[in-house]
């Protein structure tokens, strides 16, 4: 279901990247003890579920998955001609003393991640927050970096990166639009 643009990561590539990230998460944290995944709406949530499935395959244990909507934490509300609809934040477990892996599809300016971290802090005090992204496209405006990256893609600011999902929210491919 790719639109026009260059496919920079196809379905198999996305799968391999997610599998590698899952292994890296386990290696860094020495297993799934105390681990929770929180995806950023909407792409990040789908990817967080993918990662949770892989972690379960490897470790045989399902980690909790939550969703965070960062609309209310944006720093550019005034800049939007019309307000964005607010999605639901669903974190039905405590973050107190947990290791949170924040999951997003594309890392760009870092402002979304800043907003998501603020949102997480309002839900409790995690031991640590780590960041997993499928694509890092550069152009950071804040001192933020990802702990786990599927693919580094150098881009210009005029380009757009889209992670495509199918009807059942499985990632299909990653497209670079000029």
């Amino acid at each position, binding site marked *: 279901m790719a639109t026009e643009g260059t496919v920079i990561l196809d379905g198999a590539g996305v799968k391999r990247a997610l599998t590698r990230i899952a292994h890296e998460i386990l290696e860094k944290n020495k297993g799934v003890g105390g681990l929770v995944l929180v995806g950023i709406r909407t792409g990040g949530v789908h990817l967080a579920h993918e990662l949770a499935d892989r972690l379960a395959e490897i470790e045989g244990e399902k980690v909790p998955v939550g969703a965070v909507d960062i609309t209310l934490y944006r720093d550019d509300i005034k800049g939007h001609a019309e*307000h964005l609809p*607010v999605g639901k934040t669903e974190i039905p477990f405590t973050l107190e003393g947990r290791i949170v892996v924040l999951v997003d599809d594309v890392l760009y300016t870092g402002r979304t991640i800043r907003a998501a971290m603020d949102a997480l802090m309002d*839900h409790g005090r995690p031991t640590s927050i780590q960041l997993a992204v499928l694509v890092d496209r550069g152009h950071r405006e804040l001192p933020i970096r990802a702990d786990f990256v599927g693919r580094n893609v150098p881009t210009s600011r005029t380009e757009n990166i889209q992670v495509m999902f199918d009807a059942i929210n499985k990632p299909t491919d990653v497209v670079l639009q000029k």
Partner: protein
Amino acid sequence: MGFKHKDIIALRDLTKEDIELLISTAESMREINSRDIKKVPTLRGKTIINLFYESSTRTRTSFEIAAKRLSADTVNISPSTSSATKGETLADTALNLLAMKPDIIVMRHAVSGSHYFLSKKIPCSIINAGDGAHEHPSQGLLDMLTIKDKFGRLDGLKVAIVGDITHSRVARSDIQGLTKMGSHVFLAGPPTMVPPGVEKLGNVTVCPTMKEAIQDADVVIMLRIQQERQGKTLMPNAREYSRYFGLNPENLKLAKPDAMVMHPGPINRGVEMSSYVVDGDQSHILKQVENGVAVRMAMLYHVCGGELAE
């Protein structure tokens, strides 16, 4: 899809899509109200003035809590402390307040349409917290959210509204909102309290008796008898009113078995509703109050971006 209104004065002015957006935002806002830290930074630095020319506990508190949960600063002005008691006109009060650069004025006023008058005079956003017998949009929205919580939809539901329709801004907002969303509204009340021509709004049926209105209803909304607005002529006395238009466990059986009962408050127990119904299983009255905060958060959030879209 976005919200393009600077003000929210009446549900009559909103489209079905606007109402859907406000309700869905309110559904998302609800999560904030169940957290330990009930605050998000969204409206940080915004100033909201609650200008209440009529007394109110629920609505004013609800708007104030909503504003604070979005990190806005709020100032309350109530009738006794306002310069209106010294003879200042509404327009002068508003212009003076405006000089202090508020972002939103939430106002309740006894005169229908005073918000329209004001919105032409001042550029900041205005939210109607009730104007005379005109509209009470936040109540209409929270009623719709509460109904949607139970049935998952508004389309195709039979909603009975019983009581003093003529004086009720809640009824007007409910009728405007619910009919836009596809519900069918049945009204009943003493003939002196039902405005003529209300059927012309479409999807509205006026029933001669309460029994017909609540027969097989999914939702029964009881209105408060507004003793402060009554002339002597409209109603013989509370006991007689209660016999013909009061909701009790007996006549509630006419409605669907899982029908929900709502009331905008404050309740005159024993007049429009018996205590058995108020405190019964089918009562959603406190749920309405709970949803009020989320709905008002959604309203404040959406008007704050509206100015730019004009």
